[in-house]
């Protein structure tokens, strides 16, 4: 592995929901500062990998290491400060009765960090949120603004790893562009490691360095994003996926 330690290292990861095994034998090494894309169709288990890393899908076997530290199945404060997640649906991932201020202060309160009045406006600014939104409720914000709040919340504890589960698929294309730009800038500014799950290959092409194609719970291929751009992926299924995303109507 050389001298550089992996930010995330998965070895032979199996994840089950009840009796059904959703992810089988997944092994990945994701370097610090890298942006890694996990692509596949729905049911391929790509989101489940993220949920296993976070502990939201605790029924897994194998090994998950974050910066060389083996991960257990609980969600504790140390893990929370290291790794955060942004969810797909900006309408479902914010507490409907809490203002932006309450949502962003909560992680600080949990970790006993005092200066919320300085940090909340700072983070809002970093995520491109107008300070006037601070005391608004989610229903007073647009989808894009909500997703900015969700990203800001994930970054409040200054994590090193950000897991992104289809962060733009519920948004309009013009808003998607804004959020993708924001994610790119935040990664550069804060030296974050991203793992992004998406079905949208152009998003991977824009944001990622490497990608893994998943199918029915297994990794089919790990490739450089250059292979995606030039359509020179090795596995036939990967190529089929690329093909379908360029010409959707095979009439």
């Amino acid at each position, binding site marked *: 592995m050389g001298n550089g330690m992996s930010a995330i290292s998965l070895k032979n990861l199996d994840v089950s929901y009840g009796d059904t095994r959703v992810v089988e034998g997944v092994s990945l090494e994701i370097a610090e500062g890298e942006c890694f894309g996990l692509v596949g169709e729905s049911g391929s288990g790509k989101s489940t990998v993220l949920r296993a890393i976070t502990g939201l899908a605790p029924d897994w076997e194998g090994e998950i290491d974050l910066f060389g530290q083996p991960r257990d199945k609980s969600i504790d404060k140390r893990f929370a400060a290291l790794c955060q997640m942004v969810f797909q649906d900006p309408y479902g991932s914010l507490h409907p009765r809490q203002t932006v201020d309450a949502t962003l202060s909560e992680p600080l309160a949990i970790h006993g960090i005092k200066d919320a009045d300085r940090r909340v406006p700072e983070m809002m600014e970093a995520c491109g949120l107008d300070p006037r939104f601070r005391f608004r409720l989610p229903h007073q914000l647009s989808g894009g603004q909500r997703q900015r709040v969700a990203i800001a919340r994930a970054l409040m504890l200054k994590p090193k790893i950000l897991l992104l589960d289809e962060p733009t698929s519920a948004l309009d294309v013009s808003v998607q562009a804004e959020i993708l*730009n924001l994610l790119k800038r935040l990664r550069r500014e804060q030296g974050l490691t991203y793992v992004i799950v998406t079905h949208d290959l152009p998003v991977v092409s824009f944001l990622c360095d490497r990608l893994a194609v998943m199918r029915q719970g297994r990794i089919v291929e790990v490739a450089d994003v250059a292979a995606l751009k030039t359509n020179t992926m090795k596995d036939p299924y990967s190529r089929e996926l690329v093909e379908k995303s360029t010409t*959707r109507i095979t009439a």
Partner: protein
Amino acid sequence: MSEPLLDVQNLRVRFPTATGPVEVVRGVSFTLGRERLGIVGESGSGKSMTGRSILRLIRKPGEVTADRLRFDGKDLLSISEREMRKVRGARISMVMQDPKFSLNPVMTVGEQIGEALAVHEKLPRRQIRERVLTMLEAVQIRDPERVFGLYPHEVSGGMGQRVMIAMMLIPEPAILIADEPTSALDVSVQGEVLKIIDELITRNGMGLIFISHDLHLVSQFCDRILVMYRGEVVEQCAASELDKASHPYTRGLLASVPQLNETRELLPVLDRSQWETA
């Protein structure tokens, strides 16, 4: 093209709010022949409201007005609700985004498709069953006999949407309004579903209104495109000439989509002040 199937002039949809009425569709005009018309726009552009208002599906207190909303020699805004029911489903049908919410969970798939037929045409049961099975085959469901007896929760998303399409097309309507029919589906399934819609439309010589947020998808699939923004049509062009679009909104939208071989460091963001007049 002869007499258009549908002629819409100056369509407006208004909703009263605490701070006065809000117009969500502001003077939309278009005609539809036996063709595939795409209506593209982002959320809040009024594209879905336009589709729904044609079938008078806007709920109170919403209010629909138009200088003209003609279909089949009838003015859809002035006919009685009873006559409207004969149009809805039988002559103009609509496919919605998510089959999960549009199918009745306690009726089998076959019964539901047959229901559409039984309401509009009085046919003996056996004949209905046969027509349903043929229709299921037409939407490329491999073993129609088995699917006929399944309940909606037992079918996958892609199959559910095919069932919806079968249900909407079995009375052989003149116009199909498809509101984001594939947005809830996987890319691979999307293609198949679109292909089915396309084949059935062409075969029956129907008109299609395809409502979507996806400019590229619409440009590949439709003959003509209307781009809507804030309740108005800002661009109208042939699908093949989308790359020559003139309105800055359309051009901005096209540019903001990432490409498969993306090389840009940042994506261009829409500058709405460019065309919005306060």
